[in-house]
């Protein structure tokens, strides 16, 4: 496919005269264009309504319709907050809940402290000027993300099996090592996603800015700290919050590898597997719609809290630069 010749650099250069150096100048703060509205802005509806309708019909309605059940008993009687009292007051539930929450925090820490830095490093290396074969690396490193969790579980269980594999320690069979091992498996699987996100931002940074900094005598590290980092900081926030949301909803890998009981002895249980057991039951334990909805509500509040912290604590303070 042939594309028009204008490069994005050229495009950016044309606006450059009006655009100041992005390093913290207040003049560069995002300006919002306010067309003087005289008549009803129909186009806004046109932009928003299609997404709104599909999303509301197929996601918000079913979820709220089910979330409502957290205020009812399984028999259908309104019980107010009784289910929440059970979740936090009955030690069988509360113990499992806090245990899963704690593991979820660990799971998230592994992703934000191992996965995302690796992803950033890879994305930076992929965008080093003049390095050949970047598309090949970009493609190959991404391969694990497209795999079905069934084969990922299968192959890693094999590799990490003292019986067939390359290790002598049963990493997936010990309470102390199961969760870190599964976290790293998940990091292995997903690192391509934050890599692509960082990459998408990095390649959009105009070379001129970096060149200018180099001309001013800045070394690679200094360029990263004072030019690249401020420009990718908003994306770092986005990736962290997306990781947070994904991790606190995670389920597949642990369920596939360790089963719904997330063994041994619930040492790899996270909120997703706890929710599944509660809502859908497991083996001889029957599921409960009411308690399932209660657990889901608790998960919702935890994630909402994280998102609000992000929105008001981070996103409002971090400068997004136009490029």
């Amino acid at each position, binding site marked *: 496919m042939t594309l028009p010749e204008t490069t994005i650099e050229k495009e950016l250069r044309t606006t450059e005269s009006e655009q100041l150096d992005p390093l913290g100048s207040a003049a560069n703060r995002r300006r919002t264009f306010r067309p003087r509205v005289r008549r009803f802005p129909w186009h806004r509806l046109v932009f928003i309504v299609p997404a709104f309708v599909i999303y509301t019909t197929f996601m918000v309605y079913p979820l709220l319709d089910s979330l409502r059940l957290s205020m009812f008993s399984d028999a259908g009687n309104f019980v107010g907050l009784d289910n929440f009292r059970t979740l936090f007051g009955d030690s069988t539930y509360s113990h499992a809940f806090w245990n899963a929450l704690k593991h979820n925090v660990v799971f998230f820490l592994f992703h934000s402290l191992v996965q995302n830095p690796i992803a950033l490093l890879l994305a930076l290396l992929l965008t080093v000027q003049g390095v050949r074969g970047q598309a090949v690396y970009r493609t190959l490193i991404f391969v694990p993300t497209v795999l079905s969790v069934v084969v990922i579980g299968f192959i890693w269980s094999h590799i990490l099996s003292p019986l067939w594999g390359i290790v002598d320690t049963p990493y997936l069979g010990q309470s102390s090592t199961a969760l870190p091992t599964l976290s790293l498996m998940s990091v292995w699987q997903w690192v391509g996603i934050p890599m692509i996100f960082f990459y998408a931002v990095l390649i959009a940074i105009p070379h001129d800015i970096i060149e200018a900094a180099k001309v001013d005598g800045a070394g690679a590290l200094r360029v990263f700290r004072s030019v690249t980092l401020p420009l990718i900081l908003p994306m770092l926030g986005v990736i962290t919050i997306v990781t947070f949301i994904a991790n606190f909803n995670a389920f597949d890998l642990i369920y596939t590898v360790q089963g719904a009981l997330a*063994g041994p002895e619930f040492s790899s249980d996270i909120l997703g597997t706890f929710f599944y057991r509660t809502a859908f039951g497991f083996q*001889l334990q029957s599921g409960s719609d009411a308690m399932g909805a209660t657990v889901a509500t608790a998960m919702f509040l935890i994630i909402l809290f994280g998102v609000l912290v992000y929105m008001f604590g981070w996103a409002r303070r971090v400068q997004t630069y136009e490029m």
Partner: protein
Amino acid sequence: MRAGRKLGALLVGIIAIAIAIAAAASAQTKATTITIESWRTDDQSIWDTKIIPAFEKSHPDIKVKFAPTAPTEYNAALSARLKGGTAGDVVSCRPFDESLKLYQEGYLASLNGLSGLSNFGSVAKSAWITDDAKTTFCVPMASVIHGFIYNKDAFKKVGIAVPKTEAQFWAALAKIKKDGSYTPLALGTHDQWEAATMGFQNIGPNYWKGEAGRLALIAGTAKLTDKPYLNTFKSLAKWRPYLPKGASSVQYADAQNLFTSGRAAIYPAGSWEIAGFTAKAKFKMGAFKPPLPAGQKTCYISDHTDIAMGLNAHSKNATAAKTFLTWVASPEFGSLYANALPGFFSLQTKPVSLKDPLAKTFVSWRGQCKSTIRNSYQILSRGNPNLENELWATSAGVLNGTMTPAQATSRLQKGLNKWYHPKKK
């Protein structure tokens, strides 16, 4: 945006195809088709090539479709389908509470009065009957028997005889280990259920005297901290040195493959393994029943009611489905099923003659020993924590050495005390 345009064209194409197909979907023939829900993905080809053709031959007006769901997702998917109104007409029933709950919620129909039910005794029906024993809601299909499958070649090579008592069993294990060519016991604990099902429930009935012990637990006259349970765990703990390397991460499929590849001598089993093992193993296999504890004469085996079939209460093809279920209750089906799936034994009162030698060995124990079912299935797994999953964790813990037998039994009883309070006599 060319990419967008290209994708746009693709979408238009997709919609066009969809409309074309919708238009082409003309009137279909009106033979009643009934769909079977099952977790036995393993059996698809047996149903398609043997069982369904046999039924359709005698019932040309009914078409049957066997539509299994992955076993791990079955309970969840079935419950969602029943609630959402998209479940099949005939539903495979798990034993006891899972199915009882479906009946109580109105998703399974009562089968009282179905003519074929007279082919089953009360024990067979006990897993699919209301607590007051008045309503049966599933047609019993099969039970599975526990025991040990062994590698005959390995026994010959190491020079051991089939163990009859526990003392002989442990001596045999020690000898195999000393010989070094085979893993003595192919059993892992990673998936947890194997430890409880093929370990605890396999050897336990000998200790708690089968039905007597099981019913005493339900009645509340026996406790899980009592001697029989402690001794079962003590016996289980002795298996530990003979398990494969890294047993805590050995999955069920690993243990199966360890045995069928000829690298292990004994496999603590359920009879359901017979067909798969026979197809895979390149050596001769035999089976022995759980060895007797010291000084005991009577043997007890776990002959567990495992699978049945019920009627979706909201089925639009209830008449055809009932006709099918009547056939499932017939001796013709009993023989067909038990022989197509050696190791899944018919629950009908009239004995079915089997062809598979290993299956014959297993079923012969019914005549030599007293039968019972797994003690956690009836009533005792109704609450939270449920006994079955607690047994998984404790059996795995004892086999791994992370828990002593005494810790295991006290945890089990504590869990039960939390919610189960049978009326004291």
